[in-house]
């Protein structure tokens, strides 16, 4: 692979000394493409063994890839760090304008080292880095306000990305997110917490470089072909119409929608919070990541009244997707849309990972029911299924941590249940709270073995559904192989930082054809080899930091609540995990 001169530039920022420099690293991008592949290399280089995730030695890495700014849906930025949530590999992706901004500012990757002795935000453009005082933004109640202040203060509207953390990140909640362009997130594994520990409140990245190609004619031809597939075939239509929220009803019908802390897998209120209901009654706007014709981002209108002021309303937009709906809707037994959106809005204000926050609140509700915790622990908040006000209050208290219980909950359900009990119902996998699928063993093995403990690693939920349709079950070895193959290929896509929603458009052949005009010649087997190697590099990091497939905790709850494939058998899961480990 060869690489253009802008992509190979890695921007190193030192927060201790407030300095920066650029290094040209063509070999890095030649061997590891970009995104995930480059980020894991940099993490190996930068993060010493046993590093304290909240300490100065934990680096914050972001990387983009060669297709960004050139092809549609090459829209993601990959962030890597050591996760304060799991104490292991931290990897989180986000779109918005982040990738295009970093690439067109003239960088392929960004490495932030050290800790600032005062709150700062950074402005990054082709001239380098400006360090700005963020002490007035630190502690600000709402992440929205931080966004609007920076929008007004900094130049580059339409060409920039504004990433920021909320108070959850400042206060060390281990699952704080980084918000980009208001409605997109580096959601998982506590990137926001790492920023908070570094005194880094926000990043403004802007740029509008030109990106020349090697074969101009072939570039335009390939582009138009992809564009046509994206816009004219039905492949992407569902993402535009209902968005990922289209999954709520089908999953519920299957009996795969985690409900009330997965005490159930069907939710009687699913209809009310479905993608269909939201699109019909609440959808206010659909937007897209930069350079994406699909526009899957769905924003609901939330109209709130002020009880003591007649005819006084506030109307705002709240982003929704399947995962936030599961986490703040079915998981909490919440079927009242305004309540659910208000909770999501509160989560956004604080900059929490909506998925972990929802699962944490669900676990707390069950603990209160089982009297493993008391109202004293919850600071008087009466968590009850469907009680939006309590959950909104609870989300705030996870951030302010008035009691020991909230201090524990601010580190996730794995940690909290190690103190208060209720491990059987603590739905974390490898330390990370569960995503919104209970489709069968495939999804759960995927959460456990996936490099980032995510449903996006190997899409086990989709394997389960195929098994359910065909009626032919897989042996542990077959399931492991299927998950592994998917996860390997996804390393290629996420190194090219292609949105995973476009995975059926960017088939291997299309990927190869789009790289060719950029002067990058490769083959499917070469790409697959690179993917497998990247995955091994990630797992090498994880093992180095103490991750072991043998000691993974399987929460009993997933084996108790019926899935569409019947009762999930922990022995079958263990065998699959072992097979996965061996094949890796």
């Amino acid at each position: 692979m060869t690489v253009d001169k802008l992509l190979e530039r890695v921007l190193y920022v030192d927060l201790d000394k407030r300095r920066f420099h650029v290094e040209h690293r063509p070999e890095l991008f030649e061997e590891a493409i970009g995104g995930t592949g480059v980020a894991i290399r940099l993490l190996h280089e930068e993060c010493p063994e046993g590093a304290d995730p909240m300490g100065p030695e934990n680096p914050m890495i972001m990387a983009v890839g060669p297709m960004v700014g050139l092809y549609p849906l090459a829209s993601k930025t990959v962030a890597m760090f050591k996760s304060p949530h799991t104490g292991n590999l931290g990897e989180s992706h986000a779109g918005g304008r982040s990738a295009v901004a970093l690439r067109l500012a003239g960088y392929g990757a960004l490495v932030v080292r050290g800790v600032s002795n005062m709150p700062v935000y950074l402005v990054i453009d082709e001239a380098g880095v400006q360090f700005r005082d963020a002490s007035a933004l630190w502690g600000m109640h709402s992440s929205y306000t931080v966004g609007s202040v920076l929008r007004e203060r900094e130049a580059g509207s339409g060409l920039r990305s504004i990433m920021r953390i909320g108070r959850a990140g400042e206060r060390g909640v281990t699952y704080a997110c980084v918000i980009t362009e208001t409605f997109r997130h580096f959601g998982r594994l506590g990137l926001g917490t790492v920023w908070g520990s570094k005194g880094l409140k926000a990043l403004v990245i802007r740029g509008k470089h030109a990106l020349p190609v090697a074969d101009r004619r072939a570039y335009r031809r390939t582009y138009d072909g992809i564009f046509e597939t994206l816009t004219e075939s039905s492949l992407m239509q569902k993402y535009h119409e209902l968005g990922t929220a289209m999954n709520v009803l089908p999953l519920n019908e299957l009996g795969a929608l985690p409900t009330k802390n997965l005490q159930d897998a069907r939710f009687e209120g699913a209809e009310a919070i479905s993608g269909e209901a939201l699109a019909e009654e609440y959808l206010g706007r659909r937007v897209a990541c930069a350079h994406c014709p699909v526009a899957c981002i769905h924003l609901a209108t939330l109209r709130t009244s002020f009880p003591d002021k007649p005819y006084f309303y506030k109307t705002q937009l709240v982003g929704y997707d399947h995962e936030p709906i599961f986490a703040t809707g079915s998981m909490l037994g919440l079927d009242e849309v305004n309540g659910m959106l208000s909770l999501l809005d509160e989560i956004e204000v604080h900059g929490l990972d909506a998925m972990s926050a929802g699962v944490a609140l669900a676990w707390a509700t069950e603990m209160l029911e089982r009297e493993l915790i008391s109202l004293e622990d919850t600071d008087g908040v009466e968590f009850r299924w469907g009680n939006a006000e309590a959950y909104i209050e609870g989300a705030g208290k996870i951030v302010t941590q008035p009691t020991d219980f909230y201090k524990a909950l601010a580190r996730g359900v794995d940690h909290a249940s190690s103190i208060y009990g209720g491990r059987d119902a603590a739905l974390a996998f490898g330390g990370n709270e569960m995503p919104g699928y209970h489709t069968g063993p495939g999804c759960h093995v995927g959460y456990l073995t996936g490099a980032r403990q995510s449903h996006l690693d190997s899409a086990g939920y989709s394997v389960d559904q195929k098994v359910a349709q065909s009626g032919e079950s897989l042996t542990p070895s077959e399931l492991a192989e299927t998950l592994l193959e998917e996860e390997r290929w996804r390393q290629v896509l996420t190194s090219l930082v292609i949105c995973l929603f476009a995975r059926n458009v960017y088939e291997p052949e299309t990927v190869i054809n789009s790289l060719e005009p950029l002067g990058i010649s490769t083959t499917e087997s070469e790409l697959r080899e690179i993917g497998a190697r990247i995955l091994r590099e990630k797992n090498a990091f994880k093992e180095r930091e103490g991750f072991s497939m043998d000691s993974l905790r399987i929460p009993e709850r997933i084996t108790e609540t019926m899935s569409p494939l019947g009762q999930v058998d922990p022995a079958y899961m263990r065998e699959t995990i072992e097979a996965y480990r061996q094949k890796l």
Partner: protein
Amino acid sequence: MFACARRFAEGGLAKSCIHVQSAGGIDKGFVVIVCRACPDPPCARVCPTDALLPREGGGVKLDIEECIGCGNCVEACPFGAILWDGEQNKPRVCVYCGYCAPHCPYGVLALEELEEAPHDRG
């Protein structure tokens, strides 16, 4: 924006003549900034070298070789529709080729021949 740059068969945004930005945050929606084909273009009036001349049918034509890169036109356009190519240090302005329109899947952009001056249409 990307389609416009692709006219020159390149990626990135340096050569784009159309700009899209949020109207003060994504929740407020977006504005498209592009030359509105003024019948009596103020940008052309301030060009010291006549590199920017009124174009028949509205708008302007840029003779890039005559242009000295002073940036007067950028200041003069009330819509901010004259963009700047920092790499060439020259203005960029829409030439009404229509290449962008079919790349807008939601029909926000279209290339049309207008009888009346565009201002009459708001």
